[in-house]
């Protein structure tokens, strides 16, 4: 499936991108594997994952064209 990935905050800086498009993704763990492979630095950062602007924990079921979002701890205000 095709998955759109967004990086916010410091992670956009670390990955030098805010947006990536991945094709032929088999599952969430497949996606995570490919992202960590491409951006090994991100393991040094805290982040949470949202799918289609909904926070997820564990190992969510992904659908074609889902948006997977990497979010460092919020710092609004």
């Amino acid at each position, binding site marked *: 499936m095709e998955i759109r990935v*967004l990086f*916010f905050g*410091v992670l956009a800086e670390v990955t030098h991108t805010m947006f990536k498009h991945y094709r032929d993704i088999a599952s969430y763990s497949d996606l995570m594997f490919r992202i960590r492979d491409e951006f090994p630095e991100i393991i040094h950062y805290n982040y949470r994952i949202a799918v289609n*602007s909904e926070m997820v924990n564990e190992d969510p079921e992904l659908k074609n064209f889902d948006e997977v*979002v990497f979010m*460092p701890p*919020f*710092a*609004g*205000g």
Partner: protein
Amino acid sequence: MKIEENILNEGPVTQETISYWLSIMGKNKNLGGHSIFIGQVRDDVKGLKKVIAIEYSAYPEMAKKEAGNIKQEILKEFPDVKDLHILHSTGRVMAGEVSLMVLVSAGHRHQAIDACAKTVELIKGKLPVWKKEIFEDNSHEWVHENPA
């Protein structure tokens, strides 16, 4: 009251914008109190460098949704609240400029004041917004914590 609405404001929240919201909030004669919080960028000194601005980024779709969740949580806890508006800056806000406005109107003062204070805390904890401090020499540092 609209529950889901865009609360993101490109650049600083201006005095004109704040005055506009103040002017419309008072129309309702059964309101007894309005509590307003205005957050401003401080020219803190970090190490030897002075903060000249904060640059905010946000995840807009989720910010809209979370703002709606915050409103619903507030209305449930504070049923006397009749109106709640939030504006949060994105992009660069210079020291001395406003990056956050929260405006709560209620029938009586206690719920207006408590609901406004709680909304500010929920914004800090739940809104998908990130910030980096920009220093005089144009270097920057991401803010990872939420100091009070």
